[in-house]
């Protein structure tokens, strides 16, 4: 028996969301009285043995260049073979882009019940029940998993990474790797920016900023905070900002430690994508804006005056600290 955790990497570097999945999987293994093992695919430059500090005892590696890009079919085949080899009773993924492509396939292959978007450890005293977000973050469901093998994908930013001491044994896993059918021909990473779904802080702008030419004040604030930038749907629709920045029920769902909303009214569909944020700050000139009801801190004021002052004040705090 084991808990098998999929370790997602990009260009050889293990993703932050996978460190959360590792901590979660290791805690689950402890709860179940079993071992935590990892599976990593492709060429990795990170020190895999050092991932033992997140509680994983063994890491299976399939170091095959065919796995350096994601073909969900191939990934699912290899991960399922690893699950069988390690007699996994639970397979854990991050519910990130790769997890969304692969976890469901692995679940179908292993005839394992899937909880996608989990946000807490399972209750295992009486059955196996996992809490997950539903209705775009407006509620939670407790899902009973009825099958012997279970697959869980963990919402990014919902489980705290804990590093202690430890070294993992890294072993090459002998599996058959077919030729990928999905051929990646170009990768277009937005360099110099923090990926939105991995960001600790997100600074987001709405129609209140009036036009793309006014985004400078928001970008300055984001830069000062090391934050990712986001926007409301009409801003994306009007091409003031690229569409991948659109957050909300029909866009990207984020759960950063801090979400700063500037000139966004706080429509229910917008809130659905951001309400899992730990702390929400709203800057809006309309005291009646619905966003204030969902906020922790707020300033009723003109964004064009408040935002540059905020950037300056943060600069000052940092200089003083």
């Amino acid at each position, binding site marked *: 028996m084991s808990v098998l955790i999929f370790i997602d990497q*990009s260009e050889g570097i293990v993703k932050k969301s996978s460190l959360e999945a590792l901590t979660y999987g290791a805690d689950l293994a402890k709860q179940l009285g079993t071992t935590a093992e990892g599976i990593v695919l492709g060429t990795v430059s990170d020190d895999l043995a050092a991932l033992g500090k997140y509680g994983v005892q063994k890491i299976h590696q399939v170091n095959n260049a065919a796995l350096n890009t994601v073909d*969900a*079919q191939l990934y699912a085949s290899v991960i399922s073979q690893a699950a069988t080899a390690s007699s996994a009773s639970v397979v854990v993924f991050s*519910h*990130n*882009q790769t997890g*969304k*492509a*692969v*976890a*469901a*396939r692995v*679940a*179908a*292959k292993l*005839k*394992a*019940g*899937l909880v996608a978007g989990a946000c807490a450890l399972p209750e295992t005293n009486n059955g196996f*029940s996992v809490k997950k*977000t*539903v*209705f775009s973050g407006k*509620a*939670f*469901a*407790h*899902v*009973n*998993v*009825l*099958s012997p093998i279970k697959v869980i994908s963990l919402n990014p930013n919902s489980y705290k990474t804990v590093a202690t001491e430890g070294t993992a044994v890294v072993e090459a896993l002998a599996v058959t790797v077919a030729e990928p*059918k999905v*051929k*990646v*021909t170009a*990768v277009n990473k937005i360099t110099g*920016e923090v*990926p939105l779904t*991995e960001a600790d802080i997100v600074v987001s702008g709405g129609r209140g900023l009036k036009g793309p030419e006014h985004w400078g004040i928001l970008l300055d604030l984001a830069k000062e905070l090391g934050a990712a930038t986001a926007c409301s749907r009409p801003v994306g629709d009007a091409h003031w900002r690229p*569409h*991948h920045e659109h957050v909300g*029920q*029909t866009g990207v769902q984020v759960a950063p430690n*801090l979400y700063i909303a500037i000139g966004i009214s706080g429509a*229910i*569909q917008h809130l659905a994508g951001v309400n899992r944020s*730990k702390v929400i700050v709203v800057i809006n000139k309309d005291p009646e804006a619905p966003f204030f*009801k969902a*906020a*922790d*801190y*707020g*300033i009723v*004021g003109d964004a064009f005056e*408040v935002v540059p002052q*905020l950037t300056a004040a*943060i600069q*000052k*705090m940092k200089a003083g600290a």
Partner: protein
Amino acid sequence: MKILVCVSKTPDTTSKIAFTDGNTKFDEAGVQWIINPYDEWYSLVRAIELKESNPAATIHLVTVGNADAEPIIRKALALGGDEAIRVNTDNSDAYYIAAQIAEVAKQGGYDIIFTGKETIDYNGSSIGGMIAELVDAPYISLATKFDLNGNTATVVREIEGGEETAEVALPVVVSCQKGMAEQRIPNMRGIMAARTKPLKVVEPAAIDALTSIASFELPPAKAGVKLVAPDNVAELVRLLHEEAKAI
């Protein structure tokens, strides 16, 4: 070319989220039902566009649901699509639903199967991947573009912090999101035509569900907003630093 578009019924985005029966059931009182926006705006419209450039293509819609899903299917048919199939069962387990659609897919022999990136109620992002596994086809998730060149699809999909372009031979299963197409409004002709389009009802295959929802829970209410005067942003910075420990 045959395209299968998976369509799901979801509560309207402004619906009040509440539960009944000791928090075990979604409270449907007063809820308006819509086509899951990802299914409607992106997968269905992209399928219609593909048919517009290749009139020999056929589009089938499939939904897994009770008779009360039919208005949604008719609305989808008003946008486009040649016929619809409803698998007559109600179940929330992703595997159960995907396995029903996979049965339909195997019988229809489709070149392309489109799903939305997720439903806005269950947020699983699971159905497409499961169908793909069950019909043994490649899967492209979170696609923002899909173009055909003969039997090869060129797709753009979301990755962490960017996107990538990939090529894959048909048949393929694709989950669609923003970028794939632009939302359309059904016109009168479409609405009239939809009334007479075939809507086949099939009984579900014998599949065991692998999960079930035990209960729901609402998040705790926020304590209330702390307002800071606009001429005192330093105070906001102090609160974020010292109290919220967020910066």
